[in-house]
């Protein structure tokens, strides 16, 4: 007989003790009548938190998943209806500084794990659905599998940061890494097709995949094949850097290359860049090299078409200066931005080129420099960083994202100016970055961003592209101040604020289908008829939309439930490749591919979208629309809009956010007359 058996490892003993306490707490919760459950919940969550911190804790919770849910752990929260949970919200919950949020999210994942494994038959969600959800969640949170807590996490979460890691180790072991990787690759491609300006997190995910593939301890099976293009586009897109030799080695290799090899390098990089929207740090090394040695290959390296090439020829000196000032390995995305900016031909607009020269020489305020350095580190100078941001925004106006901030209005304005009025954007950047002040006018009265105290956002945003980082806080305050100046006016303030804030081209005609006082729907038929008559080519005299127009949508979740009001830009309305009339629009949300419920799925690629555009068939789009602007003098014929078309829109509307907003009179009108 050995003595070893009688001594169990200390952590196990601890886990056993904690599990007894957890079971106690769960029992108390289960027995409590509904009214006193909230009082019993904190103890369950806190004890579960301590269990999850232990080795093997996640497995123990998985076994108790059904008991936990039966006791009412999720009752009254979003987690109560697992069929509506959205994977993309999980990183936020898991990074929360609030232990209860982290714990309840973890409990929910473990519950879905039990469901997906068939251990727990759930009446609201199937095993397949649960599995699908978990793989997506893991893909999005891959960083949790392969990294130790960052400084920021440690600061906000402390020990808590270990819980998501333990959780995902357990999930990965139970589900298998191979599912995660393929899902993740698909996800990355989907986002890249929208060509966002900010790609740092995507680059990180690709790096995770590369590390995963290189790790002999992780068996990926046959998965991960689709990652090759992604990984190579970052770490070795061409012959001469295939094995990721490091920038210095690569630079040396360039010195000894002949014309044909350089040409091959240039086209190799350009293809990778235009395939993915990602720029390898090697790419700027080549470009800068060619600038000195062989500038006839610059157009090749930028991958320009004849339009872009023309523009480059006309503004050769400016482009060279932009490359010298802003395109470094640390700011490699500038190269892509520059290429797309040239393709747009906006340099031909008279004020743009001189404004770019101003940008090149712009002296940044101390505050601007500090903000840029704080956010992006000091691998590039603040001026180069901002220049990268400027060319990227001008090259990819629809790639502007609002980050995790409530500033959709400001993001939309920046995008609209980059798209429609680039020299105005450059003016804004100069004011913000150099003067720390922007002055806009509202009905003739100047509004200074310095004098306005507060904006919509309560803290300075950090997760933005360089231009947004500097300009959004100013715009946000001005926008909020314009709203304040409309206090007391009847109706929705967007009527006055939108045209003054975004630009003269925002139509002064204004329609809203929500009664501001009651929140009920209001003149829905009239609203929709005007929208169709102004925007739908069949009823507006086949007039394509001239300027981008601000519009407001009622944002709904995948169960078609109302979430909130959201600002977007309508860009164009036309037939898609399948001959469906679609609205193409810009959504300042970072990922436009969203499921708005009731089969309304916003498409971002494959239906004729250009980079960064989102699209929906017009009747689905109109069903979520609640505010639009139009030119009252250019309105189409209201009487030509057929009722059948509007009925279809109203169907979508009443099945989603409009369901609870039908005013009493409308109800009577829709009832069949009593005989």
């Amino acid at each position, binding site marked *: 007989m050995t003595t070893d058996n009688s001594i169990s490892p200390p952590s196990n003993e601890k886990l056993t003790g904690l599990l007894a306490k957890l079971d106690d707490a769960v029992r108390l919760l289960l027995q409590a009548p509904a*009214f006193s459950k909230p009082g019993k919940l*904190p103890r369950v969550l*806190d004890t579960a938190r301590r269990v999850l911190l232990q080795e093997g804790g996640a497995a123990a919770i998985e076994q108790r998943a059904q008991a936990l849910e039966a006791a009412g752990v999720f009752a009254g929260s979003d987690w109560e209806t697992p069929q509506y949970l959205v994977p993309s919200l999980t990183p936020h919950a898991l990074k929360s500084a609030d232990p209860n949020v982290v714990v309840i999210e973890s409990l929910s994942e473990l519950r879905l794990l039990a469901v997906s494994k068939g251990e727990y038959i759930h009446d609201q969600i199937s095993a397949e659905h649960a599995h699908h959800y978990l793989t997506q969640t893991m893909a999005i949170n891959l960083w949790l599998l392969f990294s130790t807590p960052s400084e920021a996490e440690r600061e906000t979460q402390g020990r808590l940061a270990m819980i998501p890691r333990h959780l995902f180790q357990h999930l990965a072991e139970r589900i298998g890494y191979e599912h995660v990787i393929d899902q993740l690759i698909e996800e990355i491609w989907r986002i890249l097709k929208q060509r966002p300006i900010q790609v740092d997190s995507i680059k990180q995910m690709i790096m995770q995949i590369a590390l995963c593939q290189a790790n002999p301890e992780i068996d990926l099976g046959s998965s991960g094949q689709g990652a090759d293009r992604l990984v190579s586009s970052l770490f070795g897109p061409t012959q001469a850097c295939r094995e990721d030799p490091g920038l210095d080695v690569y630079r040396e290799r360039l010195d000894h290359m002949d014309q044909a090899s350089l040409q091959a390098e240039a086209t190799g990089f350009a293809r990778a860049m235009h395939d993915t929207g990602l720029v390898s740090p090697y790419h700027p090394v080549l470009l800068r090299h060619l600038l000195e040695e062989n500038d006839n290959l610059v157009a090749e390296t930028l991958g320009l078409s004849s339009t872009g090439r023309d523009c480059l020829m006309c503004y050769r000196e400016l482009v060279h200066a932009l490359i010298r000032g802003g395109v470094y390995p640390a700011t490699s995305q500038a190269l892509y931005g520059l290429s797309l900016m040239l393709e747009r031909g906006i340099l031909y607009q008279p004020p743009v080129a001189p404004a770019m020269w101003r940008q090149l020489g712009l002296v940044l305020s101390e505050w601007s420099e500090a903000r840029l350095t704080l956010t992006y580190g000091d691998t590039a100078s603040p001026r180069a960083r901002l220049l990268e941001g400027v060319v990227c925004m001008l090259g990819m106006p629809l790639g502007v994202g609002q980050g995790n901030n409530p500033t959709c209005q400001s993001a939309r304005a920046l995008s609209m100016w980059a798209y429609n009025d680039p020299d105005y954007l450059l003016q804004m950047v100069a004011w913000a970055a150099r003067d720390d002040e922007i002055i806009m006018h509202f009905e003739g009265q100047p509004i200074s961003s310095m004098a306005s105290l507060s904006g919509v956002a309560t803290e300075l945003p950090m997760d933005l592209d360089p231009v947004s980082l500097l300009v959004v806080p100013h715009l946000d305050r001005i926008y909020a101040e314009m709203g304040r100046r409309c206090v007391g006016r009847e109706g929705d303030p967007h009527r006055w604020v939108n045209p003054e804030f975004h630009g003269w081209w925002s139509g002064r005609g204004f329609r809203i289908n929500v009664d501001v006082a009651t929140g009920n729907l209001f003149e829905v038929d009239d609203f929709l008829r005007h929208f169709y008559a102004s925007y739908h080519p069949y009823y507006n005299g086949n007039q394509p939309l001239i300027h981008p127009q601000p519009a407001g949508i009622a944002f709904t979740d995948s169960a078609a439930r109302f979430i909130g009001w959201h600002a977007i830009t309508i860009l164009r309305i036309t037939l898609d490749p399948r001959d469906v009339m679609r609205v193409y629009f810009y959504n300042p949300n970072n990922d436009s591919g969203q499921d708005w419920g009731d089969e309304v799925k916003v498409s971002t690629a494959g239906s004729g979208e250009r980079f960064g555009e989102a699209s929906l068939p017009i009747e689905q789009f109109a069903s979520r629309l609640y505010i639009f602007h139009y030119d009252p003098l250019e309105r189409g014929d209201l009487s030509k809009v057929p009722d059948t078309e509007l009925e279809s829109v109203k169907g979508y509307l009443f099945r989603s956010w409009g369901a609870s907003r039908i005013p009493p009179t409308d109800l009577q009108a829709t009832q069949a007359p009593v005989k």
Partner: protein
Amino acid sequence: MQKDPNKGYIALLGWSLNAIEAAENFDRRYIVVAPDWAEDYCQKHDIPYVPWNFERLNDRSIEIAETLKEKGVDVAIPLYEETVEWAGAINSVLLDNPRIYGQSLLLRDKALMKRRAQLGGIRVGIFEEAHDKEDVVRFLKRVNQTLLKLDGDPNDPIHLKAFDKAGCLGHRVIRTPDEVDTIPDEEFPVLMESHLDGWEFAVEAWIHKGKIVFLNISEYVTLGYSVFVPASPELEKYREQITQQIEKLIKAFDIEFGLIHPEYFVTSDGEMYFGEVAYRPPGFKVFELLEKVYGFNAYQATMLVFDPKSTSEEVAAFFPKEVVDADGFAGCFGVYPRRRVVSRLEIPEETEDHPYFESHELTAPMEETVTKRTAFGTHWGLIYFKGDDAHTLRDLLKHQEELDFYV
């Protein structure tokens, strides 16, 4: 739970979710008497309820007694200090016994209570009422003269308590005449007591038909911070003496039924001094601690002894045997922030990792600046421990005082 119409119908005076939950799971009919802000909640959760605002007793007070009588309620139970005289007034009507009201008034006024105890042959410390600051200074001087202190010797402290508030609310310790100035005028009148060096403890005694049916001794580790049950063997040694003291108290206050919660000191020579007594559930969640170790619900126990229809057999069967039936020791510690500025809640790892640690009810700080404590009073939340050894638990509770929970 299925209600037994042959058993009593009980009114709970004051709002306590724990009490309502206990009543819901007990075989007696009940009704909650609480201010009207509770109405929506009660409707939503089907909790039997009658609205009443417990302000000072006045001409309309009879209304609530009559309302309850009409509904067939047998007895009212006070859940808070503020509802004790209401219960007295209501029960004197329901049970047709006017003396009950007088008794409740005695139990509501700390000065009257001490006099009554003195008359009953119970030892109390020196005490006096103070109407202003001068009274306090005079009392402080006289107490210390009595102790033969010379000028310059450190004073023995005196204690100030509000007449009619629960537990530690408004409790101050005064050592020097300077400190008297810190007392706001609106706190007067107050009760002043000499300081007794000794071991302070509390008792929860359930009384049925004039007899003690269950007696718990709660041991304070530090007054206002921590308590555990059952008491350590060193204190339990005094159980017989303590029982005699409680019997004296029952006699002095003529208590037939209910739950009393007195506080005592044992001095180094083994003498018991009476502090005060309350006719309601104790604060500091002692009820929860009792449930953790004995398994019975102390609110249900209270309803049982209040219910005039309870039989002696039912009561005897309900309660376990003191101390021997306890499964370990359970204690709790009230957390006060120690720093002046705090930003977040952080349970010390050594506390959380201790095998005795069970749970906590602390929440994130609402404000960054901590209000200076002027009196004993409101802690920011409790943490619970349970374990097999009284001394380990006691030392653990004591040690918590040196830790920061808010940083």
